[in-house]
Every structure is written in structure tokens, then in C-alpha cells.
């Protein structure tokens, strides 16, 4: 019973890896409780969005997590040069 966390962009550096399996828990808060405090601070930063199974979540309290769910943490997109 596990969740898959995906760290996009600079969050990959904060996590030290692009993906991580964690034990299944019911809420995002419980996921955060099991992570390094520095990483949690980066994930909670303004404008970091969360997608659960590819669907953007507006309220961190809303989802009830299930076995195999994929949680993607999405920092602001880069825009860029052109």
C-alpha cells in the first residue's frame, strides 16, 4: 500500500530525486508529516500546485488518498527565452 510522489522542476533538487514511494496515508498533511521539514517547506511554498492522478487539486484538505495514487508537486512553470 503506497503512494507515489512526483517532484517537478526545482522541487526535484529539494527532494533529491524525481519520484519517491511513500506508505499509504489518507491525507496530504499525513504525507507531509513523513517528509523532511526542508522538503515540506519547499512543497508548501506559494504557487506550488498539487495534482492527484493528473487532476489539479485546489484544496489540500480535499483528497482522500488511495493505494497507488500519484501526487505531483508542480512549481511555477518556467516561461523562458523566446
Amino acid at each position: 500500500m503506497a503512494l507515489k510522489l512526483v517532484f517537478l522542476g526545482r522541487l526535484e533538487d529539494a527532494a533529491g530525486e524525481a519520484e519517491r514511494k511513500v506508505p499509504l496515508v489518507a491525507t496530504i498533511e499525513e504525507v507531509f508529516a513523513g517528509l523532511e521539514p526542508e522538503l515540506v517547506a519547499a512543497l508548501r511554498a506559494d504557487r506550488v500546485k498539487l495534482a492527484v492522478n493528473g487532476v489539479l487539486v485546489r484544496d489540500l484538505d480535499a483528497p482522500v488518498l488511495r493505494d497507488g495514487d500519484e501526487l505531483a508537486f508542480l512549481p511555477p512553470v518556467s516561461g523562458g527565452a523566446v
Partner: protein
Amino acid sequence: MSGVTNSVDVRLVTTAFDPAREIAQFTAAHPAAGGVVSFTGQVREDSQAGGVEALELRHYGPLTLPEMEKLAATVLGRWDLEGLLVIHRSGTMQPGEPIVLVAGASRHRRDAFAAVDFAMDHLKSESWFWKREKVGGRWRWIEPRHEDFEDIRRWQ
């Protein structure tokens, strides 16, 4: 909307593509269009010391292409186009390599100009890509620029 004759082709690619070839095929596929407008974005060649050695774009499979397709649908709903082509790279690119191609074919030029401009502003500011640059042998993530939000505000 021009109904059944318009077509949309949205692609997320992980290997190099040839913009000239794509534009030629797109143009040939839309003989009813009076004109084709295209924009190609490429990795900047930086001759100065400390220039960018490589660019990497990352995407997130469940979101990136579906959102590009939604953007294309918005563009088709807003301007009268015969066709719309959007190709965006992901992965590691060298200076001079194409990153993005947007082309619009329309009966009247203003629709194509505006549609491509709108699509580029929204691709840049809102599409799910994260970018990092290699400078002096070290990779660093690129943060959003204020100008990108200014660009998109033009359309609101």
C-alpha cells in the same frame, strides 16, 4: 469557425524536429487557406563566455499534452482557422535547436497572426514545462519571468 475543414495537430515530442518540413507539410494540407503564419522558438546561441551550453525541458505526462490540447481548442474557438499546428519539445537541447513551433492557416491573415501570437503567449506562461539551463557545466532551474504574465494579460 470554418467547421469540418479545420484541423488541429498538437504534439509533444522528445526528439529533434524539423520546423521547415513541418511548415511545408502543414501548408500543403491547407490549400483553402490564404496564408500560413508560423513561429519557431529555438535555443539561443550565446557567443559570450558563460553562455548556455544546453537547455532541458521537463514535462509531466498526465498534464502537459492534455493542457496543450485544451489551449489549441481555445485558439480554434476564438479565431477562424483552417488549421492549427503546435509542436513542443521536451528533453535536452543544444543551442540552435528548435523548441517550439506554432503555425496557423487561415483564409485571412489577421486570424492566423493573432492565433499564433495568443498560442505562444499562453504556451510560454501556462503550459506545464520546467526548464533548466547548463551554464559553466552546472545545471540551474529557470524561474518564471514577470514579462510572461504581462504578455498573457494582453489577451484578457
